[in-house]
């Protein structure tokens, strides 16, 4: 008779040995970090620049500089660029964050000869055509209005402002009125200062053979080599505004759900408490069986989802609990969230629960390091901190060795109601 009650035996890995990327230096000094995989005949390149909003002196400059890269060069118009990439079935995207800006390129190997020269052109000769810029600005303004109807967007922006202040790039968000102050001269200047060989790193994955590297070197590797050495624009922007935790409630007309964020500034991934706090955080709200999920979704049915996390930018980070709940239950949800936070200070996490979370986190690590493309993505995200994939080995070790008592002290320090700010956007009318 089949025993369906007893769970099958299982094992959890004890340790991992993450792979390290190969490194290749291009003629112009740019480093390429790559992971090789030849199951498919394709490659992905991420060209990453220290050109995020951190470095701008005016709203949207970093953003539009990055977005306009694909909207025309000295030799090809925006339409021609789209045509060339679409025709070869390649994907090219630009993305900007607080700290970095990048161009992402995915292609079948067979098309690299025709596409790499255009990629190089985009990186070095973007021309910021006024008409294209005007169209982009108009589209962005419309998206801005749509996005700012969402309670979660309004909350996210206000929340970061509360944490880091409106003076600091991590807390500052552009206003609608500021779109009209964008001119292509500003973008051109930003482009000169931030998009060049000394400020770029390349991360790659796929069938990266010697031949592919040669093609890359003959195109991107020859870019900017004739220009004078450009001074890197390094900025250390202090965090001036003192963080004052408080409770704020913001109305939103017609909202049937409230967006809730509770949190505080913490630190970057380099902090000694980082891994342990991630472990504690997972128990709180980092997986489907978390304390927050079990209470606020599975027991009360207040929400479709609730979670908590640690976010690390290059120079600072924060802890946040976030959810969207029905407007009628927003205050109740906040009460329950603080109830769960306080439990960690008053009780130690039971052994079984902690083991389960540890096992789950180990499984997650295995899933995030699965294959060359995953590895390149993880490595790329660690690079700005001066870290490599050994991070995961250390992470796993901390997960395995940290005990409940230590997590209780950590909770006393970080889950302190007096230190956390609460923001509710969208209220019952």
């Amino acid at each position, binding site marked *: 008779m*089949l025993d369906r009650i007893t769970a099958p035996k299982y094992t959890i890995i004890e340790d991992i040995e993450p792979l390290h990327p190969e490194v290749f230096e291009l003629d112009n000094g740019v480093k390429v970090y790559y992971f090789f995989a030849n199951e498919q005949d394709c490659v992905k390149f991420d060209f990453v620049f220290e050109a995020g909003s951190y470095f701008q002196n005016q709203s949207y400059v970093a953003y539009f500089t990055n977005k306009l890269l694909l909207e025309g060069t000295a030799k090809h118009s925006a339409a021609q660029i789209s045509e060339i990439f*679409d025709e070869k079935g390649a994907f090219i995207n630009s993305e900007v964050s607080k700290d970095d800006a990048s161009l992402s390129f995915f292609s079948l190997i067979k098309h690299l000869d025709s596409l790499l020269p255009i990629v190089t052109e985009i990186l070095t000769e973007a021309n910021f055509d006024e008409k294209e810029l005007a169209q982009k600005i108009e589209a962005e303004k419309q998206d801005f209005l749509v996005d700012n109807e969402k309670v979660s967007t309004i909350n996210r922006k206000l929340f970061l402002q509360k944490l880091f202040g409106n003076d600091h790039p991590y807390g500052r968000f552009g206003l609608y009125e500021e779109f009209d102050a964008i001119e292509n001269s500003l973008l051109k200047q930003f482009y000169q200062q931030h998009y060049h060989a000394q400020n770029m790193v390349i991360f790659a994955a796929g069938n990266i053979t010697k031949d592919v590297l040669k093609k890359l070197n003959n195109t991107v590797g020859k870019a900017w080599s004739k220009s004078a050495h450009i001074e890197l624009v390094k900025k250390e922007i202090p965090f001036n505004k003192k963080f004052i935790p408080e409770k704020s409630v913001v109305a939103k007309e017609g909202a049937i759900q409230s967006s809730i964020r509770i949190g505080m500034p913490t630190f970057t991934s380099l902090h000694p408490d980082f891994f342990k706090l991630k472990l504690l955080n997972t128990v709180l709200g980092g997986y489907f069986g978390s304390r927050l999920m079990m209470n606020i979704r599975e027991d009360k049915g207040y929400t479709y989802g609730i979670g908590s996390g640690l976010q690390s930018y290059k120079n600072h980070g924060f802890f946040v609990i976030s959810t969207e709940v029905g407007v009628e239950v927003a205050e109740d949800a906040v009460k329950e969230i603080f109830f769960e936070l306080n439990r960690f200070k008053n009780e130690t996490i039971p052994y079984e629960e902690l083991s389960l979370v540890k*096992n789950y986190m180990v499984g997650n690590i295995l899933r995030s390091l699965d294959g060359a493309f995953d590895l390149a993505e993880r490595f790329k995200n660690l690079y700005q901190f001066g870290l490599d994939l050994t991070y995961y080995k250390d992470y796993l070790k901390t997960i395995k060795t940290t005990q409940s008592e230590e997590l209780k002290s950590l909770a006393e320090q970080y889950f302190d109601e007096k230190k956390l700010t609460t923001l509710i956007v969208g209220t019952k009318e």
Partner: protein
Amino acid sequence: MIAFKKHVLPNGLTVLIHQDTKTPNVAFNLLYDVGSKDEHPDKTGFAHLFEHLMFGGSKNIPSFDTPLQLVGGENNAFTSTDITNYYIQVPKNNLETAFWLESDRMKELAFSEKSLEVQRKVVIEEFKQRYLNQPYGDLYLLIRPLAYKKHPYSWATIGKKIEHIEDATMEDVKSFFYKHYCPNRAFLTVAGNVEEDEVINLAKKWFGDIERQSDYVRNLTKEPEQNEERIETVYRKVPANLIMKVFKMPSRFDKNYFAADLISDLLGRGNSSFLYQKLVKDKAIFNDINAYITGEVEEGLMVISAKMKDHIDPESANKILKECIEEFLELDLEYLEKKLKGVKNKVESTLMMNDIHILNRAMNLSFFEMLGDANKTNEEIDNYLNVDAKSLKDLAAKILSPLNSSTLLYLKEK
């Protein structure tokens, strides 16, 4: 090329095995051949509500998620108009846990009142969060009943209205389970560093004693041929006017499915597409425009969706869009052939990207097996490459006819 082996157990469960020795993880994908199209028009949203209930505990195992998390696994599920798909990812050594969990809930769900109460609330919150509290969130709740008058595609997976979910009873739920959740309606794919024997033995051990249910004869109400241009206008609290225009297209089983997909790519996939260049760049009446297909198994929809610039009135926007579609239908074969090469290359890249991750391979194998043959996944690329410009042009004339169109003008409240 996704290599695989296939077995069918005596109770009708189809088991597919795909070996990949390079990954430490196994993808365990179980697809049930039931979607919102199988619901009764007065009891919609059930397939999706049911997906939630599947996590409420089974006869022998009170919690589905906890034992899986304990072995380092992860899981999720999704429901569409056609299928309900459950997937687990576990480290290779703990594969048996996936079999234990998934087979127990196929055999017998716990059916707790508390679980129904909670999940009802959760689904209602999901309805609000994703469809009612987002700008443009209810687009599909409006376009579907406009395009389909009789066919069950006329309602979205989330349901026609919240009340259907509020009124769902335990009896409704139980009868849905026994009708649709059985081994003969299920397609299991196990992909990873696994051996065929290993997987078959586990399948026989854990799923072998589950009884097959009577074969379900799918008798979907046929949608009458359209033959009329349909248009509807709604007003919502949104900052910009939007137009959505949909056309009925061939089913997955139709040889013209692939050409239809490519038509939507030519029209509006990416910045070099026809509608984007004409209407966003040249005529500059839209800020953005996209064309895509719903990818459904039965006769689904080809969708064109665009956000209007402030200066254009909705009627003119619709008129200009229609004229542009006429222009597309008049493109000469040589030009089409050239553009076709490009969209085919894009499909090739996309299919290749999809194969990178083991979970996607597992999902594809289950899906195509449900369609009749898992190997169809390996034929996809050729099916697209073989589309010729002439057939595509003829098909476009049929699909993109105004008499086959349903248009929604989704406008900002005054």
